[in-house]
């Protein structure tokens, strides 16, 4: 597999993003998703060590309006979570694809990445939703 640059985000139809570096995927929710949710006030993160299958519920994000499930964009083992969100859930609104990341997965099946959208495809997808 060709090594990707960190800025190359891949997206799911459920508005999670993935940034791949070697065999580790950093995941969060897209700028579009945080705008739709509004002010994020709590993020329930998975436990480190948990193994998830693609599309499985892995986290919950609570905005002022409602609780929303976050799905694993790919299969893998949770190797790290963003503890900063515990005290500062607003990072998800302020920097959704940077400091507002949710968790890191050890990639189990790299082929799953091929089913995700690149930035351009995702922007087209989002425009079709409005």
């Amino acid at each position, binding site marked *: 597999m060709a090594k990707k640059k960190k800025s190359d985000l891949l997206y799911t139809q459920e508005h999670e993003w993935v940034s791949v570096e070697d065999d580790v995927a950093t995941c969060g929710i897209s700028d579009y998703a945080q705008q739709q949710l*509004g*002010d994020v*006030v*709590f993020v*329930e993160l998975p436990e480190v060590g948990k193994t998830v299958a693609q599309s499985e519920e892995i986290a*919950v994000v*609570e905005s*002022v*309006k409602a*609780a929303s499930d976050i799905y694993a964009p790919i299969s893998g083992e949770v190797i790290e979570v963003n503890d900063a969100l*515990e005290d500062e*859930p607003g990072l998800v609104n302020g920097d959704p694809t940077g400091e507002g990341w949710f968790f890191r997965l050890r990639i189990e099946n790299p082929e799953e990445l091929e089913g995700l959208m690149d930035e351009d495809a995702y922007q087209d997808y989002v425009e079709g939703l409005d």
Partner: protein
Amino acid sequence: MTTDQFDSLKRTPLHALHEELGGKMVPFAGYSMPVQYSAGIVQEHLHTRAAATLFDVSHMGQVRVDGGDFVAAFETLVPGDLEALTLGRMRYTFFTNDAAGILDDLMVTRFEDHLFVVVNAACKDADLRHMEARLGGRATVSPLEDRALLALQGPKAVDVMARLVGDDIRAMPFLSMAQMNIGGIPALVSRSGYTGEDGFEMSIAANEAERLARQLLDQDEVEPAGLGARDSLRLEAGLCLYGNDLDERTTPVEAGLAWSISKRRREGGGFPGAEVVQRQLREGVKRKRVGIRPEGRVIAREHVEIVNAAGARVGEITSGGFGPTVGGPVAMGYVESDQAQVGLDLGIVVRGRQHPAKVVKMPFVELGYYRGN
């Protein structure tokens, strides 16, 4: 929600203005209403507590009750003491059923020749049928269909109103109502609201609503806010939302609202479910509404289970969310009466996991009501 369903939603006289202001429209009680504007719920909430906010509450039902002995007749529907109300004063009360369950909560203002009643949007059709049926011709019930209702809420609302109608309004008592002119627009204005702040509500002709709203929004202190902020503001203020915290299976005593029933009405009864209220006041209730403060940041929303220290179910959250002024989660719910002491440690079960929470006194914030100088 499909387009067809959206098309069937009713619109308030301010619908075009909401869209112009970037309101995010959602279906609520059969109406298309703004849940928020571009500032977002948290900003709209904080602005209300700091300055002044305009809410469109035109979806609520405005009703005139007159004819016959309208005060005595209406008292047979509600436990509120209307005989004790002086002219131009308003009171919070309920329509109760024969089991003292709450059919709706409402505000009643007494005038010389009529009562002015404001009921919840979701209940208004049922309320009208209920009033017609129970009054049985002893008084006349007239829904005021061509009226809008605006709420200006926040500590600076009074400065805005003083600028528009004159300084006399500064001394207007809390829970009173008077006819006045706001920039040439005749309005029935009350000092009241649903945010825990000082503020005013204005009943005006539907065709004047947009002109008045624009005039208010033109004032430096005023920003618009939607239903989202309205809900978080009332929750922090400890105020009940009908359908969540109050319903047909809940009595005013269980809801902790017996303060709204005077000695005369408690003793004299004469409203639906009076015997139940009297018995509950005498013997106590099995469950009570309490404030719940989750520790940490987990949000306890409606239907979240409340458990005791041993993990056994003792109640349920009926309203909960993030309190922007509190800076954390706040909630209210019903618990078994022996679990209702302020300070008691309980648990809330969110997504299968138990989190610590405490029974706390409400409101969660200091109320800003005008109590005279």
